């Protein structure tokens, strides 16, 4: 393994980290307020699809915006069901995942090819070249997506927000002690909905990033368990955004490693086993991390005034 191999491995790791980090940070905000969304996998998938369509219609920024918007809307539905209607969060999440699997497979057929859609990097409209995919920075170490910067900065912002602001403490109160927060005049349901929508917007952005800024394609299995790996990041972090970023990088690294080993001409390990690697590492890391983490007391329970 040469030096340039290591650089390119790190570059792919950083790119693979972005969707995990964004989704995990969003879920941390939601879980702090008391909502546990296992529908992230589905949100990633749908917003990757919606983002690709948006980008092809109006450019990369419209694509990212539409992806984020779709993610926010699905989370809004999730949050309303699980606050005002006092639903079962796990079941809603499972439903979102099933819906997304069907919807994206259905949508891909509408676009022409079943199961597969390439997002071109540019198209020519009226003789002028128009960008579809988000442009990458050229650096001495290769091309980097600007979204990496967002994924690296956002955890610090969210960490500051949760620890140091009044709104952040209100979020925490909604998850830890909804009754006391209610007495203090905080609208529990509204704050939970806002937190979940924020989480959904980030997951949507992560989905759109995959199709519009990173992989340049949509498949019906594009999310490939990333929503659940992001949940694993959240579990590992114990709701600390900085640790979640670290976990996202670790998982991103092993995804990159798996891709890298697959390209080796000597094929030291069958590809099927290499593909298992990120999931096995996720399991190992989560089993090693558990024990010291503590979650909000009222995570997953709808709040009802007595």
């Amino acid at each position, binding site marked *: 393994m040469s030096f340039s191999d290591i650089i390119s491995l790190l570059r792919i790791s950083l790119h693979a980290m972005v969707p995990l980090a964004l989704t995990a940070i969003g879920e941390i905000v939601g879980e702090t307020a008391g909502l546990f969304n296992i529908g992230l996998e589905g949100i990633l998938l749908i917003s990757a699809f919606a983002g690709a369509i948006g980008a092809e219609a109006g450019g990369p920024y419209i694509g990212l915006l539409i992806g984020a918007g779709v993610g926010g809307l699905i989370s809004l539905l999730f949050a309303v069901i699980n606050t005002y209607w006092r639903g079962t*969060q796990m079941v809603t999440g499972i439903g979102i995942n099933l819906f997304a699997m069907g919807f994206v497979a259905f949508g891909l*057929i509408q676009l022409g090819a079943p199961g597969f859609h390439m997002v071109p990097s540019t198209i020519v409209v009226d003789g002028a070249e128009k960008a579809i995919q988000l442009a990458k920075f050229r650096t001495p170490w290769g091309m980097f997506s600007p979204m990496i910067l967002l994924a690296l900065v956002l955890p610090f912002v969210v960490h500051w927000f949760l620890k140091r602001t009044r709104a952040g403490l209100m979020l925490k109160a909604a998850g830890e002690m909804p009754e006391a927060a209610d007495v203090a005049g905080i609208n529990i349901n509204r704050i939970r909905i806002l937190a979940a929508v924020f989480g959904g917007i980030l997951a949507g952005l992560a989905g759109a990033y995959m199709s519009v800024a990173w992989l340049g394609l949509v498949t019906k299995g594009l999310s490939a368990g990333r929503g659940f790996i992001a949940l694993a990041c959240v579990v590992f972090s114990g709701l600390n955004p900085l640790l979640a970023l670290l976990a996202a990088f670790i998982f991103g690294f092993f995804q990159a490693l798996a891709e890298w080993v697959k390209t080796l001409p000597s094929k030291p390990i069958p590809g099927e086993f290499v593909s*298992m690697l990120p999931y096995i590492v996720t399991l190992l890391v989560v089993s090693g991390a558990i024990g010291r983490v503590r979650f909000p007391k009222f995570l997953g329970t709808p709040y009802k005034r007595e």
Partner: protein
Amino acid sequence: MSTNEAQQSSRLLRGVRRTLTGLHPALESLIAALVGLLVGAILMAVWGYDPWRAYIALFQGAYGGSYEWASSLTRTTPLILTALTFSICLRAGMFNIGAEGQMYMGATAAICISYFTLPFGLHHAVGLLFAALAGAAWSLIPAALKMMRGVSEVISTIMFNWIAKWLALYLAIYVLVDPLRGEKTVSIPLTARFPLLVPRTDLSYGIFVSVAFALFIYFLLWHTTTGYELRAAGLNPAAARYGGIRDKRTMFLSFILGGIAAGLAGATIVMGLPPTYAIYGGGGLPQLVNMGFDGMAVAMVGRNHPIGIIIAAIFFGGLNAGGRVMQFYGSNPVPLEMVRVVMGAIVIAMSIPELIRVFPMLANSSKNLLNTMRRGRKEESA
């Protein structure tokens, strides 16, 4: 004489009330199913399809005749079992989302019986045993991780689904592969195939495995001490522990039973589905894929009750079978994938408790009904 008549009529009323209370969950499932179909119809209309004709094609393709019924029941067979996987664990208070992977392992283990010969009947039993053991083994690891390391079973079972998928693909492509046809595994021999229940369809005797296992689970959960403990641990873990129920034991038991069910689901597919009785590694496991996830939808609509699950599985099996007809029907056919969109919408609707109250039209009538029932219950206790 008149008092006797009054007693009789009040007994009748009580019976009606009890039936209505019992039907309440079924009514909710029905409404959720209608909501799901409505969401599907709206999406079809948005994309320029004719939802009315699509649904006619779908339901005729599902229940329009004996051939259609056989086709629906074929798709019902594994769904009953994968739904049971989810439900047994949920009854014990855990979310086992790993039916998909456990089913892959069961199907792969069942293929292994192709390498030896046994008499008809015994060969079936060995195949089912292999599949059950493989499914149980695959679900035991997440259970152990949960018990020893506190790892959330939601995450571990999903990770095990992916590991199982790649492992099953590897085994199907390199190890169990048919030497003459590289895209599939060796086929289950004649002595281990479930005979067809209805000739010239694909419905096999495998469905009796599903129904028998569902009835077994019903008996276990509601007529044995073990089942009572399992349900108690799910309803209130703290109280159950206080009452002397060993919660770790019930947790393991629920995962083992769930794994067995999912493993058997894999076996019913490879041992009962004509024409090849094999797994297609080259095609990415087409007969198996998503059966575990669909099972969760079945479990929800069946209200996590074995009998409800059988009914719900017939509905979802019908959707799957009818979807295959729908995708070739008319000049602008609706793709099969629409069926899973409908399933997802149904599950989302199912997650809303007292779904009836969400709909203003139904709210009043349901409130009245609930009030009368409540009043009735008070009278009964008084």
